[in-house]
């Protein structure tokens, strides 16, 4: 699982039936600077991800998302999902030894 900022939403007008009722978030994964509390710099470096969401995260939230095979684990039917929102994060307590 990794942390990321929700920087947008994705809405689909036509979609695969497997995505019925799905919400999609545009997420910027945390680099080390964001753990330290730096302001998010959307699209600065690294890819932004589209993350499946059934928890109801909103713009500006910090979420914990899983990627890969585990992202599809909660679904009853095979669902083509690469990344899934597993937690809306309330607090991040981060204290590296040499910061």
């Amino acid at each position, binding site marked *: *699982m990794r942390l990321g900022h929700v920087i947008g939403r994705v809405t689909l007008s036509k979609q695969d039936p497997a995505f019925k009722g799905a919400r999609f978030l545009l997420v910027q994964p945390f680099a080390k600077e964001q*753990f330290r509390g730096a302001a998010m710099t959307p699209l600065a470096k690294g890819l932004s991800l589209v993350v499946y969401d059934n*928890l109801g995260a909103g713009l500006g939230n910090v979420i914990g998302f899983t990627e890969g095979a585990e992202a599809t*684990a909660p*679904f009853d039917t095979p669902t083509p999902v690469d990344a899934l929102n597993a937690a809306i994060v309330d607090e991040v*307590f*981060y204290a590296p030894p040499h910061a």
Partner: protein
Amino acid sequence: MFLARVDGVIVSTVCHPSLHGSRMIICQPLDPEGRDDGAPVLAVDPHGAGRHQRVLVSTDGSHTRAYVKDPKSPLRNIVMGVIDDEDEKAGN
């Protein structure tokens, strides 16, 4: 599996049911010389590892699903143990 240092914890109330009651720590992956290697990741911590302790993290999702007793859990990383000592280090 990889070595990591515990650099923090996160708190979440709205989350997948399999996360309820599990401690979720921020793990800084380490290279063989003990330097930070990449961005931190999250892991379930059944052992209660302390801040800045070094841990062994498994990326085997099936073990994590067994630990949280939920075959439909989206979790993958889990702390397998807290490291006492590393004798062999590159360059010594």
